């Protein structure tokens, strides 16, 4: 059915109900003015003045909502990239500019795909806190492990020392030389035996 001519005339000549229908030059102008925080009314006037096109305020308002959402994704991605790089640099590592850009792209993709929980800064902070706690626990475990290792090393050294002493005594015995009180004391020390025990043993042997 044909629309009445009067209805078609109702809309202003050349008025556009969506920003996509504007010329590229006008679209660029709209985006730049939105970047500068201009109001839809001001943008409409500027577009009219510059390109003689007539976007409606509603069209600019709708587009602005969509545009700001995209800008927010990008700004969130920027924050997350900055935080991550800060953490990496704190560990003494360097990040190339290309890697930074790639991280930024990845974070933007996460934000755009709607997985906002993955980019949520609070979650990020929480994760960082958990990471720090884990690192602290790891450090404590490492310290305990090191202590155990040091003990083991000490025991090993003592065992080696004991074996060396026993070898010396064994050699002495094989040479037919008798072991003196000094040697007995050494054996007692090696096996951690008390005076009485040593005396008993000496006594029972005789």
């Amino acid at each position, binding site marked *: 059915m044909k629309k009445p001519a009067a209805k078609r005339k109702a809309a202003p000549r050349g008025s556009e109900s969506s920003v996509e229908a504007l010329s*590229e030059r006008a*679209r*660029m102008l709209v985006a730049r003015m939105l970047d500068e925080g201009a109001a839809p009314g001001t943008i409409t006037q500027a577009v009219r003045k510059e390109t003689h096109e007539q976007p409606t305020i509603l069209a600019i308002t709708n587009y602005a909502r969509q545009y700001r959402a995209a800008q927010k994704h990008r700004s969130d991605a920027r924050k997350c990239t900055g935080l991550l790089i800060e953490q990496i640099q704190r560990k003494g590592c360097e990040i190339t500019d*290309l890697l*930074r*850009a790639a991280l930024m792209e990845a974070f933007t993709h996460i934000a755009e795909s709607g997985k906002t929980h993955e980019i949520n800064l609070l979650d990020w902070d929480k994760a960082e806190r958990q990471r720090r706690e884990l690192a602290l626990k790891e450090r404590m475990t490492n310290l305990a492990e090191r202590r155990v290792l040091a003990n083991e090393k000490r025991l090993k050294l003592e065992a080696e020392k004991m074996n060396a002493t026993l070898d010396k005594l064994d050699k002495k015995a094989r040479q037919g030389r008798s072991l003196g009180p000094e040697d007995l004391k050494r054996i007692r020390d090696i096996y951690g035996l008390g005076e009485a025990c040593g005396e008993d043993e000496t006594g029972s042997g005789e």
Partner: protein
Amino acid sequence: MTGNEGRTALQHDLRRGEIIWVLKQDYPHAVTFRLLQLALRDRNVPLGKKDLEGYLSYLEEGGFVRCERRIDDEDIRQKILSASLTAKGLLLLDRKIEDAGVQF
């Protein structure tokens, strides 16, 4: 130059200007080629790979942007991975210098 050619030339100049404007948001850091393409798309300026590469190459020749490239084995040609605005590009954006092929 005919009216149509003039309009096309102006369109190229404006697109180059738009690229500089977008790169300014991450100055002095680089932006990946794909992210730059997406940012332009969000601004209702969708550009194909070859067109964007052409604009970036022009801007790089003028010293307004710095591009990082790698050889693409499939195409046997250099592919732009990322681009960043230079100090000279910033001066151009601030209208302290001029280039006949860039308009804002």
